[in-house]
């Protein structure tokens, strides 16, 4: 098979590769630090809908229009969590409806927390941009959502 590149073209592309390699030491450090999240003693919910990302398989018709809140749905065998995020903050509901303790967690640890009421509703302020997840403690259950980028 003939290579489609001349020597000069290949060297030029290699130069770009080498330039990229030197980039972003703090990106590497953050990625390495992610490993400390390997053992979280909680049930991981699945992300089944993120209105701002590609539609999740099998879920349709829940996209918010331009300017509307970002809608996210997480689901597990025992718990589902639906949240709406806009500039005013985060509004969420636990299903089945039940009281609980919901904490916003960032890569460096837990942040703001809220109490879900009798029908499972909770509100949280909008966190700074970056990866976050929700940590939900309900009775003897402990659940976490996958990481999302706010």
């Amino acid at each position, binding site marked *: *098979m003939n*290579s*489609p*590149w001349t*020597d000069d*073209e*290949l*060297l*030029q*592309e*290699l*130069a*770009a*590769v*080498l*330039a*990229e*390699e030197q*980039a*972003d030491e*703090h*990106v*590497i450090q*953050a*990625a*390495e630090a*992610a*490993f400390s*999240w*390997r*053992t*979280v003693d909680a049930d*991981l919910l699945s992300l089944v809908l*993120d209105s*701002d*990302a*590609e539609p999740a398989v099998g879920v349709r018709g829940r996209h918010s229009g*331009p*300017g509307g809140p970002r809608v996210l749905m997480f689901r597990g065998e025992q718990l589902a969590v639906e949240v709406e995020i806009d500039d005013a903050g985060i509004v969420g509901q636990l299903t089945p409806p039940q009281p609980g303790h919901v904490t916003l967690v960032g*890569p460096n640890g837990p942040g703001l927390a809220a109490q879900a009421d009798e029908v499972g509703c909770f509100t949280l302020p909008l966190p700074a*941009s*970056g*990866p976050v997840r929700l940590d939900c403690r309900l009775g003897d259950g402990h659940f976490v959502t*996958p*990481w*999302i*980028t706010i």
Partner: protein
Amino acid sequence: MPPVSELTALVQASAKGDESAWNELVRRYAPLVVAVTRSHQLAPADAQDVSQTVWLRLVEHLDGLREPEALPGWIVTTTQRECCRYYRQAQKVLPVDPQGDGIVSHDGAAAPDSGLLRAELRQALRDGLAELPARDQQLLRLRAADPPASYEEISKLLGMPIGSIGPSIRRSLDRLRQTGAMKTYLAATQATDRVRRPA
């Protein structure tokens, strides 16, 4: 891509809690994540957020990776998905031409695909380079540095006669073309007639 068994070993060791294996995975594939975010023209701060989210997700996905050699594909897909979110956000504030009848076209909209192909080529080059003997790597790294080392400098650094450097570089480039990583890339792209030629 590194040899399949090696990647499999790294993924499995990481899943069992071997932090040095994880760090090696990060070192190998962080440039791929960065390249994909660049191909989507994300602002640097957004690209860092996306990158961190991808790695946090991977930590929890290690056990679920049935075929570890599919990891590069998983990384590309996950990163792309996160990047798309920023497009949707951007669309919410897209400028509208009041004289026209629609949204002003978004220059970046057509870029991701060719950018992504370039990201794949660069990952193949990175992996191919890693497959080469140390001598070839040194020679190519010196010649592709910014600014490129002169034949005179290379001659001093590697202890080679100046007259042999040009032919040696050509042979090293040929060996690079013949690495498993580059052959895999070429086979995949030529099959769909979409080889990325450097500009």
